[in-house]
Every structure is written in C-alpha cells, then in structure tokens.
C-alpha cells in the first residue's frame, strides 16, 4: 500500500469510521488495534468539540450541555475542518444552524451563535491605527459636510433577533433570561483596547454607520437622517454619532471628498 492510500484510509477511519485501516495496524501487547485506533477517532471529535465550546460558551449555556453536544456532533459530521488554524473551525456554525432543519427555527440560538462569532472575529481582526476626535479640528467648518470616514477592520454590524444582546448579557452575568420578543435589533461589534466590544445601535445610528462605511459624506448622511425624520434638524444627532465613533475607537481615516 502506498503512503497516500494509507493516509486516505486512516482519515476515512477517523471521519467516517471506516474499518479498512485496521488491516494495517497491529495489536499491541496490551490491547487490540480497535482500542488503539480509537485514540485518534475520539481525539478528533473531542478536539473539534473543544474548539466549538471555547468559541460558543454562551450558546452552550443557553441551549444546555446536552443539546449543545448534539449540535456539535451534527456540525462535526457535516463539516470537517479545512483550516490549518483551529480558530476558524467554528466560523460556519451559525450558518450551519440557519440551514439545518433541526435548528433553523431556533432564531434566538442562531443569533446568539452569530453574536459570539462576531466577538471572535472582532478579537482577531487586523490591526489599524485609530484616530482621536482631534482629527476633526484640522478640518475647516465649511469642509465638514464633505468628510468621509474609514473604519477599523474589526467593525461588524449585525441585525439580530430582538433580545439577543440581553440574552448574552444575562448568561454572562448570571441574570435571569429575558422573555422572548418579536423584532430585530442591530448590534455593533469592534475591538477596543485588545478586547471585543459591542453595543446596540438605534435605527438612526445604524443607517448613519452603514452609509458612512459605504463612503457617504457626512453632509449626505445628515440629509438622509433628516429625510427619515421628516425634515427635522438632525445635524446635532449626526454629530453625536460621529463623536461616539471616535470615542469608541472605530475611525481610522478621515478625508474630504471632492
């Protein structure tokens, strides 16, 4: 048997439980080949389960150890790792839940998984120097409507089931779970001082941040917000958002568009 054939059989033995590889393995003086090969078979599942438990501790709390164990088992069966780095193994778990019959109706669990995944992504995202609000001081007042912003690579915006953040907070702080609610909420995720951070956004700030990320100038964002609010003056509100984005450490670059 070639090395390639042996490795293919060994891997099939681990992933699919195929027994063909056992013909190449000797019993030891103390035990049989099945027991010895099971060290690899079990370690594979144990290790992947450990990665998922580390990445989704709050989801595990929310659905309970037994149900989480079944979810992990289903995910491992459906998705062997294709990454050299175990940190990315759980990246598809929320999508797997959303696409799987057994899970797709459990929107709160799916969105809690998305919430935890976003925290992991923010934690590992690329570095970039952030600007303080002082960066605006050098810009003339008449140019300020034309400013555009670039944001830190860790920034994530997720629309989640209403109450997802409350569930996360309750489980991490040992509080009582909130009642199920209908509707949506938007959560902003980013990395601040090395730690993953999050906060909810109002619909106005969500709109402003989405458009700012797409490069819309500050003046146009104010106009959009005014349109949303039937023409009322929104400059102060938009200025408040802008100031908060700097305070949060979200802004990496300011420029003035033509």
């Amino acid at each position, binding site marked *: 048997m070639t090395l390639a054939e*042996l490795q293919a059989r060994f891997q099939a033995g681990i992933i699919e439980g195929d027994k063909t590889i056992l013909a190449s393995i000797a019993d030891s003086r103390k035990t049989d080949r099945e027991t*010895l090969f099971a060290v690899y078979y079990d370690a594979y599942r144990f290790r992947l389960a450990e990665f998922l438990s580390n990445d989704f501790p709050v989801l595990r709390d929310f659905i309970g150890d037994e149900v989480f164990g079944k979810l992990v088992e289903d995910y491992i069966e459906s998705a062997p790792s294709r990454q050299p780095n175990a940190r990315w193994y759980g990246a598809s778990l929320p999508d797997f839940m959303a696409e799987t019959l057994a899970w797709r109706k459990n929107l709160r669990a799916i969105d809690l998984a998305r919430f935890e995944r976003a925290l992991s992504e923010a934690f590992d995202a690329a570095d970039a120097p952030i600007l303080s609000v002082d960066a605006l001081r050098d810009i003339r007042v008449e140019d300020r409507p034309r400013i555009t912003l670039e944001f830190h690579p860790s920034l994530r915006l997720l629309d989640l089931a209403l109450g997802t953040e409350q569930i996360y907070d309750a489980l991490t702080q040992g509080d009582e779970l909130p009642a199920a609610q209908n509707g949506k909420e938007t959560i902003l995720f980013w990395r601040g001082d090395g730690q993953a951070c999050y906060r909810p956004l109002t619909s106005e700030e969500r709109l402003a941040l989405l458009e700012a990320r797409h490069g819309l100038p500050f003046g146009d964002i104010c106009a959009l917000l005014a349109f949303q609010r039937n023409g009322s003056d929104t400059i102060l509100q938009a200025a408040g958002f802008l100031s908060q984005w700097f305070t949060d450490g979200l802004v990496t670059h300011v420029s003035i568009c033509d």
Partner: protein
Amino acid sequence: MEKPSPLGFGLGLRPVYYKDIIGKNPRIDWFEVISENFMVPGGRPLAMLERIRNDYPIVVHGVSMSIASTAPLNFDYLRALKALAHRFQPEWISDHLCWTGVHGINLHDLLPVPYTSEALAHIVDRIRRVQDFLGRRIVIENVSSYVTFGESEMDEWTFLREVAERADCWLLLDVNNVFVSSFNHGFDETRYISSVPVERVVQFHLAGHSEAVTHKIDTHDQPVCEEVWSLYQKACQRFGPISTMIERDGNFPAFDELMAELDRARAIAAAVSDETHENAA
C-alpha cells in the same frame, strides 16, 4: 554545521499565564509559542507577543505544517509562517514528524507515519522544500503514537535519524513522547535516546501525559512524571546542554508549579553537567 546556542530553560507561552509573565519578569530564559495561535490578522495575541518578544528569545512551534502528508504543501500556510518569523525573529521554527490530513481536510491531530522508505523519501523531500522556502533549517519533533503499522520497515528512531540526516534539519526531542510511545509500542526508551544523533538535537520538550491502562496518551495536562524526569537525565547525559522547555496545554496549574518543574529541569541538567566535568577532570 553549528547548532544554535542553547537558550536555557523555557516555557510554552499560553494566554492563561500572561498575567504571571508580563511585567513580572519570571526566571524563564525563553518561550516557545504555538505558530498557529499567532497566524491571525491582528489583535491582542500579537500585541502580547510583541511585549514578550521585547524581553525574551522565542521559538515558534507549529502543529499544522503536515510535513508527512501526501497532500500538496500548503504554501499559504508557509507564507503566513514566514511572515510571522520575519516579524518576531524566532531562534528557530519547529513542527512535528507527522501529518494532519489529506484531501483538503485538517484533522487537527499529529497523525502517525509508517516507517517505510517511501515515507522517508517523501518527508525528506518536503522538509528540504520547506527549508528552501523559509530560507532556514527547521526543527522536527518526534510525536507520541498509539498504533504500529504493519507496513513499517524500520524502527522509529532509525526513521527519525534518517529524516534528520538526509533532510539536513534539526531535531526537537520530546522526552515525554519517547516515553509514551515506548510504553505503547513496547520498545526500550533508552535505546531510542541513544540512537538519536547528538549533533542534530537542538531542543527538548518535557510534558505530562494521561494513563489509559493499556496505553498512555500525550495530553500535556499533567505534571512531568518520574519516569520522564529519569529519561530526561539520560538525555542530558547524551546530548549535553540543550534548550529545554515544559509544555502544558490543559488542567493548568498555578504558575509557581510550572516554575518548580522548570527548576527541577535546571537542577537535573546542572547535576549532569557537573558530573560530566568531574569525569573529564
């Protein structure tokens, strides 16, 4: 061929111990870091490594090079590893004499190799290619294994020696892995140690393992056992001063307990060194 100078006594850098290390300057000569933990776009792990690297030498130790796999070499992985090495300037780069998957899958385990001439030629070729790409000799570690392949044509220690000499790489001798595999396969661990070429070994690993009655499993979640300390003493007698470190990856004890293990390693190595000098005199 001059070996890198010994670094002294080190620890595997794990986040759980950052608070005991940063700003505390414990009596540790160097750290070994898991390459993959730092092959990330950015964030706290890289920032912490920057701080530690300012004060200590490091070596990078990978688990996903998959040097024995029949899958193509993963050059995306190797590029990321090379970039990590460029940024942090480790004393050396190590990985394991194993494979981690084929057909695009990573099983995240250190899988065993049949000790055949085909596997030997394959691995030697791949180590040479990796060394060419990285522009440096790499360090290859013996793994713990739980199965014996009927296809094997030679002993593990013969295979290891042939790999090192033909590929012209360094070796990381994991003393615990020698002990675990000797129990699992019923070979003489002293014979293993005495067959590994002295001029190739640049690093020792010490670690604990788990007992499963009929076999032992390399889990790094227990203290170093007495038999491994004894084997370490023999390794010191054969190989002389070698960079030595403790690996701990689970069931993490208080930092002082690891420091005590490191002190024991220092004491054993010092006693062997004194004994050697006395004999020479």
